[in-house]
């Protein structure tokens, strides 16, 4: 009995394993919380109905009403305020639904879309509103990708491939601090 008591008094709680665990937890907690940085994309209140604007008498002040529609087959561009085919130097399509940027290898052609966005912007430098619509089942990630692409102008007007587009630098105004905007005001539209 006496011997047993002596052993108890000598025995001490070993904190080494706990300290090891804590030391492992510190980098895990730091890495886990620092990696996922959340940001936001601003959008305006959506408008519902036809994306085509009502005709106005004053053609000079008519809004461009530039719309990018994300469909299952690709991007379709329309603009009720100007001749979209002329702006994009394309032949009118038979269906008259507006120029289509078809998918390439079952993937959306963001490279071509960017060059078309720049062409329309150059024809209407005062416009900043882009109506964005998509098919009912198009995943949200494609919508955010188009918003990303349309927000800022890049150093070149067009790029050869997707890798170049990924790594392209943003174009800045002469003060070298203000980025040049492309189509920053995105309005969601849903044709009913």
């Amino acid at each position, binding site marked *: 009995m006496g011997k047993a008591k002596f052993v108890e008094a000598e025995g001490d709680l070993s904190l080494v394993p706990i300290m090891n665990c804590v030391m492992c937890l510190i980098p895990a907690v730091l890495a886990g919380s620092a990696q996922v940085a959340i940001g936001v994309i601003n*959008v305006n209140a959506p408008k*519902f109905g036809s994306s085509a604007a009502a005709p106005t008498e004053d053609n000079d002040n008519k809004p461009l009403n530039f719309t990018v529609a994300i469909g299952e087959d690709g991007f379709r561009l329309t603009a009720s305020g100007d001749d979209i085919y002329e702006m994009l130097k394309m032949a009118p399509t038979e269906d008259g639904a507006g120029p289509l940027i078809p998918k390439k290898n079952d993937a959306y052609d963001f490279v071509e879309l960017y060059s078309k966005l720049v062409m329309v912007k150059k024809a209407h430098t005062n416009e900043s509103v882009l109506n964005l619509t998509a098919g009912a089942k198009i995943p949200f990630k494609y919508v955010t990708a188009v918003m990303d692409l349309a927000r800022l102008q890049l150093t070149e007007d067009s790029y050869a491939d997707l890798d170049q587009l990924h790594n392209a630098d943003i174009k800045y105004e002469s003060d070298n601090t203000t980025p040049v905007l492309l189509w920053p005001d995105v309005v*969601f539209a849903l044709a009913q």
Partner: protein
Amino acid sequence: MSEELQNQAPLNPNGAEGEEEEGFKKERKKGRFDEAKSGVTINSLMDAMFIILVFLLMNFAVDPLKIEQSEDLHLPASTTKVNPEATAAVTVTAAGIVLNDKIVVPVKDGAVDKTHKGGDEQSMQIQPLFDALSEEAGRQENVARLINGKFEGLLTIIAHEETPYRLITEVLYTAGQAKFQKFKFAVVQGGLRANVK
């Protein structure tokens, strides 16, 4: 230097050196014994815990938007540099629409059941979400009135990247009917431009 050593010599008279060494040996032995008895000190552990505590508190204080990503909620990546603000937030996951940590309406196969839209599948308004957002808007209006501020109608949408566009627009439409007019989409910063498959 040699003078200094000579001056120090009388401090250690003959025989005293040996006694001192024995004393040190005893003390050292005693010290070893004490160390063995005391075990591991918890000071370093407490330091580590304190650092983690401060870090976690700072993290909670700085981030207005706390999002835990999962299989049902994976945010799209973006190149945006805009940081989130403290606003009301609607979360659209693959399993349901959440407001203030409560599932307002379930989602199945990327759509809300028509029973939650007044029986009309084509309706844009999700009734339970409208009720919850109207209540939230009313609360925010009351707070704005009390502090002589202005109700801004700002809403952050935290949506799963695979959410169909139709459901996103239904949520936006419903929020618009409940007086929310400005929207922000939560995304993961640091993504590549147009990098979706």
